[in-house]
């Protein structure tokens, strides 16, 4: 990328002004994930002008995209060549951008089997808080030159810099897919998922809710028919299955829609990230389990201390994804030593502390 690019020059100018006034900026793409993390504050820094696919060579399995490009546009371009972002980034509504996808670091149903956004980032060009345009990583899958700053940007919620362009590893869409459905209660579903995890079954995604487990397989057709025979269950028709998984990916179903009235009642959406073998969590409310048991969504009115201690007891951590009162923090508090490193990194990238203050932790 070239600093003289007019759109980039405008962003650099705004960052430099913010730095000299020590005024917070709110880095914005499509604004589809403003609910995630602490409340945005400061003057919006609009990245949507940095748009377009810079290079895409399907045989290299790499695409380089400017951060403001619509996620839907990128995925459509990949689809033309039979490729995709295997980690299934959620689209909470139309307008989500590639930069937002990387910064939020959220992955969809296939994550437990294929890895995260972070795993597929190969390189990033970013603007740090000094208005410097820097490139880390590259467009090749194997690259250990210097610290892996590009992957550090995944899930950083914009607190370190403005992602301007990103190179991603893409993969061919699996040759075949199949979805099976089982009427099982939570303990039975978890037990089976844990057993299947260590077997070569082409398991690609799983979701349990309200007494029913959905399992998606993906891979070579011959392997799938063998695995389906082994697993049993009821097959779901392909079209119905696709739209069902899309709903899970985009959190468009009933379970995930949190209305104003729900929020007023103190009904929150929590995400618990646990070892897949953790036994059922004891909270009151409703639950939706993904990632073969490693991700457990809760709709509950239980207070943050109760949810966080339940997660800690199960060996994991909890995130308050949607809630009216985020004053006690969104993410699980860090140990002192990790917080010190976070402050050190913030200082290293954004010494005037202008980028997305408070989106991740207070004081960062």
């Amino acid at each position, binding site marked *: 990328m070239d600093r003289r690019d007019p759109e980039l020059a405008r962003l650099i100018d705004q960052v430099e002004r913010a730095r000299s006034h020590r005024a917070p900026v709110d880095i914005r793409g499509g604004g589809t994930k403003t609910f995630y993390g602490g409340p945005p504050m400061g003057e919006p820094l609009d990245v949507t002008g940095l748009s377009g696919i810079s290079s895409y060579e399907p045989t290299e399995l790499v695409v380089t995209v400017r951060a403001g490009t619509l996620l839907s546009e990128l995925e459509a371009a990949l689809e033309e060549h039979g490729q995709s972002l295997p980690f299934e980034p959620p689209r909470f509504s139309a307008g989500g951008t590639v930069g937002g996808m990387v910064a939020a670091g959220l992955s969809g149903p296939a994550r437990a089997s294929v890895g995260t956004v972070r795993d597929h980032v190969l390189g990033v060009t970013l603007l740090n808080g000094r208005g410097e345009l*820097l490139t880390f990583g590259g467009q090749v899958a194997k690259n250990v030159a210097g610290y892996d700053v590009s992957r550090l940007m995944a899930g950083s919620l914009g607190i370190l810099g403005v992602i301007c362009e990103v190179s991603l590893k893409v993969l061919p869409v699996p040759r075949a897919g199949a979805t099976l459905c089982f009427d099982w209660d939570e303990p039975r579903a978890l037990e089976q998922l844990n057993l299947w995890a260590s077997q070569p079954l082409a398991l690609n995604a799983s979701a349990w809710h309200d007494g029913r487990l959905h399992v998606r397989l993906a891979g070579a057709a011959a392997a799938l028919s063998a695995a389906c025979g082994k697993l049993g269950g009821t097959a779901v028709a392909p079209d119905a299955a696709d739209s069902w998984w899309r709903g899970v990916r985009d959190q468009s179903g009933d379970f995930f829609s949190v209305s104003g009235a729900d929020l007023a009642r103190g009904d929150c959406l929590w995400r618990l*990230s646990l070892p897949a*073998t953790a036994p059922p969590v004891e909270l009151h409310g409703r639950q939706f389990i993904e990632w073969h048991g490693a991700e457990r969504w809760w709709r509950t009115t239980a207070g943050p201390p109760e949810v966080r201690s339940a997660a800690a007891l199960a060996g994991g951590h909890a995130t308050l994804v949607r809630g009216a009162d985020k004053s006690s923090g969104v993410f699980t508090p860090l140990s002192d030593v990790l917080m010190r490193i976070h402050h050190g990194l913030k200082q290293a990238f954004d010494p005037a502390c202008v980028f997305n203050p408070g989106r991740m932790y207070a004081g960062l």
Partner: protein
Amino acid sequence: MAALAGVLPRGAILFRREDTAPYECDALTAYRTSPLAVVLPETEMQVAAALEVCHRMGVPIIARGAGTGLSGGAMPHHGGVVLSLAKFNKILRIDAGTCTAVVQCGVRNLAISEAAAPYGLYYAPDPSSQIACTIGGNVAENSGGVHCLKYGLTLHNVLRVRGFMVDGEPVEFGSGSLDAPGLDLLSVVVGSEGMLAVTTEVTVKLTPKPQVARCIMASFDDIESAGAAVASVIAHGIIPAGLELMDKAMTAAVDAFVHADYDLDAAAILLCESDGTPEEVAEEIVRMEEVLVASGASRIEVSCDEAQRLKFWSGRKNAFPASGGISPDYMCMDSTIPRRRLAEMLLAIEQMQSQYGLRCVNVFHAGDGNLHPLILFDAEDPDQMRRCELFGADILETSVRLGGTVTGEHGVGVEKLNSMCVQFSPLERAQFLAVKRAFDPLELLNPGKVIPTLRRCAEYGKMHVHRGMLPFPDLPRF
């Protein structure tokens, strides 16, 4: 020494020259330094105490695993202490339900797979040194291997790293679940070459062992069509478990060494492997064969059993020792380039052979663009050594110009410091140093590695080439 003796057991400190000599270098033996002392703690508490002492006294610390690294990442500092973690060699837990293993940092890579085998699981990243290299070293280097196109690098297969900060404070990156709150620090710690923290325990992801693997050996009459075949395999939506290319000179060298029945007339041979369930492999092998034939393969052989498959691989896996057999010394380069530039790169290397008057043989992790040219030379001859270094630097600069990177999997260490000046701008290198100081403000952990100083780059910059922009592009350089 007295301060260390106060916190470590007798025999855990080596300081006589004859005792520290084995630690003077890693597998990059051309670069050596004698350390002040070597310490071999046995417990995490002793690691913490040794770090605390060194930190308090301002002494550099160089953590070391098996010392198999190829870039001098574990080379000692003349005024520093080598922290050998060889005694942390226990596998603590294997959990089939979460497909994870918790192991101490000094456990050998292959030992993890051996211990996981009864559960039908294995640890996927397989650097060629896997019988000797340790998981702690793999974390430091973000090691790859021949199967990483399909199964990923170390980073993709590690969930949690436990260890200590430079001052001895315990720390944990990642978690026992699939993610951790806050910034993804695991991403920067993995591959940081021991410069950000000291690793003592690692939770790795295990993968269900493929039931079957079969390998195709395909010959090509020219290197361009071999390169095009690689692209075509991937364009057809196939992700092989392994995809390796060797040029004619390399094939001849390894076949003389291990008799792998390679086609010695071919300009290049390609090894293309499929693994998975028997049904999956049967389907994929047929598709691979079709693509390779359509890409102009002059001869194709598919392994019919495990013995033959291993024979195909024996040549590739012995590429380095075989090169040792045809030359007194060799220097292994490790750059990555976009796959489509392969033919261009090999052509450039051919020209460099006459330019520098040295021979070079090539093996290539074709699936992920990682090239290992082995420059053959005689280290006894200072002029050959000098020409070899220039040859190597030229390969790395060409790789950067073609859109690649100076190191795909061996790390920067001390070997590629100059080349880092070519790949990164002064501002980018300053940002790396700032990241380093966020973890290690006094810069005591493995100082002098990976990130070149501004002065070093300025000196190297006398013939500086940045991002393909030669100062005088028309001048021949020797």
